[in-house]
């Protein structure tokens, strides 16, 4: 049973079993490996994507759950080869160390700024619950503020 959805603006058909977590269908069937596996229980956020614009931990929803929906992954943030404003801020602030969690961090920050263009520190704390073992939180916060213009 094939499930139709849109990934990064393009129509796509999932051939995976509908019970497969979206994460593994994105990574193994579509080959979009920018979305990361970290814990498998929605605790770390490395697998975060947008489903109809809503930040979602893709390890914990299934392919069946996203039928007919619009999915955006880290690979879909750039437009015409140019990084998004947040991606550019991540480079400017030299945020990543190992980088493994950063796809998820950027997806979470992108969703935050879409719904709340000028977040306070408390707003950031409430939403940015992804784990970064390298401890880049100070720079993540600064990068978000720089794009929000509220630093």
């Amino acid at each position, binding site marked *: 049973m094939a499930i139709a959805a849109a990934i990064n603006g393009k129509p796509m058909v999932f051939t995976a079993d509908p019970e497969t977590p979206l994460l593994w269908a994105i990574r193994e069937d579509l080959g979009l490996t*920018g979305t990361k596996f970290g*814990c498998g*229980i929605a605790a770390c956020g490395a697998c975060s994507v947008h489903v109809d614009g809503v930040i979602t931990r893709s390890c914990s929803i299934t392919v069946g759950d996203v039928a007919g929906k619009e999915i955006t992954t880290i690979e879909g943030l750039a437009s015409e080869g140019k990084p998004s404003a947040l991606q550019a801020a991540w480079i400017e602030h*030299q945020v*990543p160390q*190992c980088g493994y969690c950063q796809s998820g961090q950027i997806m979470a920050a992108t969703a935050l700024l879409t719904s709340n263009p000028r977040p306070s520190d408390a707003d950031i704390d409430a939403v940015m619950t992804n*784990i970064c*073992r390298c401890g880049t939180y*100070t720079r993540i916060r600064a990068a978000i503020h720089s794009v929000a213009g509220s630093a």
Partner: protein
Amino acid sequence: MMGMKRRAFLIGGAAVVGGGIFAIKWADSSAASAAKDLISGKGESAFSAWLKIAEDDSVTLYSPHADIGQGSNTGLAQMLAEELDADWSKVNVVQAPAEGGFANVGLGRGFLGDMTGSPGMVDAMPESLLSFIARAMPLQITGGSSALRFTGQKTMQVVGAATRLALVETAAKRLGVPVTELMTADSKVLHTKSGKALRYGELAAEAAERNLSDEPKLKDRKDYKLIGKPVPRLDIPAKVNGSIKYGMDVALPDMRVATIMAAPIRGGKLVSVDPAPAMAVKGVEKVIKLDSAVAVVAKGYWPAIQGLRALSPKFSDGGNGAISTASIFAAHDALRKAGKPNSKAGDGDVDAGMKAAGAKIVEAGFRVPFLHHAMMEPFALTAHYKDGKLDIWGGMQDPLATKMAAAKFAGLSASDVTFHPMVSGGSFGRRLPMYVEIVEQVTTLAMQLPYPVKLIWSREEEVQQGAYRPQSSAQLKAAIGADGKIAAYQNDYAQPVDIEGEATFIYDLPAVSRRLYKHVSNQTTGSWRSVNSTQHGFYNECFMDELAAAAGTDPVEFRRKHLKAESRHLAVLDEVARRSGWGTALPEGIGRGIAVVEAFKTIVAQVVEASVGEDGTPKIHRVFAVVDCGTTVNPVNAENQIQGGIIMGLSTAMGESITLENGAVLQSNFSDYPILKMAAAPASIDVHFIESGAEMGGLGEPGVPPAAPALANALFAVTGKRTRQLPISKTFLRDVPQADARS
């Protein structure tokens, strides 16, 4: 991130320190030229196993260090390009192949120097011998905060300078002018008299035929254009758009995915397993029994993990079924009580100091748990055995040793094994091949499968089968004399290994004793970021705070009294006190704590400002750090390393603990092994570097150790209660008499 002790043992074990070492010859002199052949394409010239210059002037550095997130490859490139006078925009870095010709001579030189305490002796060794040592080890290690201080200084700068010289000599010959009339800049050799300029790209092929000087003159620090500059890290653009490939991301035609469960009680073996429930899962192809684990091979990770979870394997307990966190601490205490230490170190007469008339005796016991590395990328190695050759892909801290290990497990010669290094999603000491099972596991699977197989460890497997920072305890005792100074200091500690040569004791005291009561449990313990400096930094710096209180002296002033005048330690301490406003008033309920630790030749002092919430949860407000690592190569990345280290140290103090019951680990994922998140991290971390110009120290690790004791000391300032056990207990801090608050 490996302990000096273990390295020293490895090197010592190869019997290269002592008589007859100069007789050892570099038996395989073709290795370096083979390495050159490996990286040279058409129109490109390789100067050594480290460096390639192409006709279009592009410079490629082959780094022997793995990118585990620490950014050292950009730093190494800065050091090379500095001495080469290369155009930075044309410099790129790739990780060196896991081949003998790329073994890390500079690293061997650095570690030998560290170990012997006599760099002069090491410098007297012929380069060929060092290369032999490096390849015999085999040294392609990333660890010990060593990349820039050893590889950078001892290899990259030297190779850059020697290559520059070869280019200049080639230009001199071509232009018919003396070398002294030439200068270099931006990847060009310039002859100012005639206005002629030759690009490195057009000189490279001919220059590569020259012998490189062993001892080229290096630049004066004042002439540095790249070292010390915050150039952007080369790897970051690919880390913000999802394009960089980690070991987890390897995809090969026809590849299968496997996942695995090892005996939950370490030391146990697989007794039996019925494969049927896994085979019933759609997509599962095989259940493979290993000696102490069972693996499921499937079309993808999801069927593999579903298949694994459907199994009910029986494992033996290896005789370890009674081991628990409590039994380990009880064993530590029993060993101390028995009073027969396995090793002793220190200076002065501690017994006399303890018995001195009027001495005030202070004692305290400290305990810390096993710690999990929690690298964000769980282990994932891919292997393919075909036509007698084995290929392995993944992120490891020592590619060359990984290849050697895989060859051993496969029963192949090293020349039939190729390791393809991938970027690592964190490591912190986790990816050293001597402490991991996955190399053997994936090799064993690949040898019996006709297609490539990617073995992915679940987070649960990663948490429960770690190479942990050891569970450790220490009983500290000191005598404070009538002058208010420490007369004697004793650390009776219990853990698997001794700390000598690694965890540096910074205070200048008349009598110090360190005694190891060796205790090994069934758990695998390895190098955890900063290794023994984490727990011993916690012990010593918390205890110094207790001694300060007992002496009735301010914690900073008390430390000052026990550090040598004019020392770098004192300068770091004073600077952090100044920057943090030590001694000035803070808002009510907030206290300050301080700690100073030296690790990997870098001195770090931190002041933490913290308070305690109503439920007993500590709140960390701000952190100030002052660092003396001699010289910073890239200040932005250096700051990043220290900030990240501080957050990791605070995270351990706030909640990280691997505990055992019935021989097995109780934790299984981030749900019960909590990592500090943004909301709990300090909003501000002020990092300042003292550019002392002293011998270069490491930066990947030394930010970690002072954070936990500085936090514990700040909580004492607020609550009057001493945290002597990590992680910090909320119930311990709750119901604290606020009247005891100090500031």
